[in-house]
C-alpha cells in the first residue's frame, strides 16, 4: 500500500533528529524526506537537480516547513508553492520555535494550512506528530497534486 511521504524542510540537524525520533515514537512510519534549505525544498518539490529521480523522491503529501531557513525563508517557499500551478494545493504546516503573532498572521495570509510551534519537550513533540497523523493522514481528504515535466 502506498504511504504518503512527508517532507521536512529544516536546517537544524538537531531538530531533524528529534523530529525523526518523534515519528518513530508515534509509530508514524511514513517515508520522511528532509531538505535543509528553501532552495533545496523547491528543487525537491519541482523534482529537479539531485531530486530528478521522482521514484526515489516522490511528491510529499505534507510539507513541514521551518520558517527560519538560511537563504530563502519558509515564507518564500510557501509563496512559491501557492503560485505553482500543479503544486499549489500541497498541504503545508509551518514550523517555528517562536509564536510571534505577526508570523502566524503572515503564514495564514500566504495560505499555510497550519502553524505549529516546535515543542521543546519530546513527549509533546510526539503528541504533535500523532495529531498530524490523525488529521492529515487518516481523517482528511488529500488534494490531487502532481509534478509537471
Amino acid at each position, binding site marked *: 500500500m502506498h504511504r504518503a511521504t512527508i517532507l521536512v524542510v529544516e536546517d537544524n540537524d538537531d531538530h531533524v533528529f528529534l523530529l525523526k525520533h518523534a515519528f518513530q515514537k508515534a509509530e508514524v512510519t511514513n517515508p520522511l524526506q528532509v531538505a535543509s534549505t528553501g532552495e533545496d525544498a523547491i528543487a525537491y518539490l519541482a523534482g529537479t537537480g539531485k531530486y530528478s529521480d521522482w521514484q526515489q523522491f516522490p511528491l510529499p503529501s505534507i510539507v513541514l516547513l521551518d520558517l527560519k531557513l538560511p537563504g530563502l525563508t519558509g515564507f518564500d517557499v510557501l509563496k512559491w508553492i*501557492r503560485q505553482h500551478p500543479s503544486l*499549489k*494545493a*500541497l*498541504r503545508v504546516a509551518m514550523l517555528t520555535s517562536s*509564536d510571534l*503573532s*505577526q508570523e*502566524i*498572521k503572515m*503564514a*495564514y*495570509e500566504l*495560505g*499555510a*494550512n*497550519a*502553524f*505549529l*510551534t516546535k515543542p521543546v519537550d519530546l513527549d*509533546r513533540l510526539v*503528541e*504533535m506528530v500523532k*495529531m*498530524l497523523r*490523525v*488529521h*492529515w493522514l487518516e*481523517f*482528511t*481528504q*488529500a*488534494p*490531487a*497534486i502532481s509534478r509537471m515535466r
Partner: protein
Amino acid sequence: VHSNSGDGKLPLLHIDDSANDRLLVKVAISQTKTPFAFYEAGGLETAMPYFQFHGHDGEPKQPLPPALVLLDYDLGDHTGADLLYWLRVTKKITSIPVVMLSGSVGGPYVGECYATGANYFLSKPNDLARLKIIVHTLHLSLVSLHQPGPIELLQEYQPDPRNLR
C-alpha cells in the same frame, strides 16, 4: 491563547445549509462533552455577523470570534471556498482555523480549499460515532497542535465575500 466563552469552552462556528448536519455536530459535541461552545449558521449571510462585532442577532455578549470554523463546502448558491477565501484575505481574522466539510469524496475543490489555506478537509461522516471521534480530536488538535494567531473582531463594514472571487 484561544478565545473562549468564559467557561473555558472554545467557540465553534458551524456553517452548513443542512440543519440536520448542524444538529448532528451539536449532538456530537454534547455527547462527548467536548468543551466547544456551539454556534451555527445556515449560510454566508447568517455567518457574516459572527465575524463582526454584533453577532448573529446583534447580541453584544456573544463570546466570539470563533476559535474554529467548521465550513460546509456546498452552501447551496455559494461555496464554502468563497468564505474561506474571504477569511484568509481579511487580515483581522486571517488566522481563524477552518475545517472544510463535504458530503462527497474527491474532486478539484479539495485542492482548491487547501490552496486557499484550509486547515483540514474532511468528508462528512456517515455515522454519529465517527463524528464524535472527529469532534473530539478536532478539539485536541486545536489546543495541542495549532498555535493560535491574533484574531480581532471586525467592526467596520466588510465586503460581501461573494464579490471577492
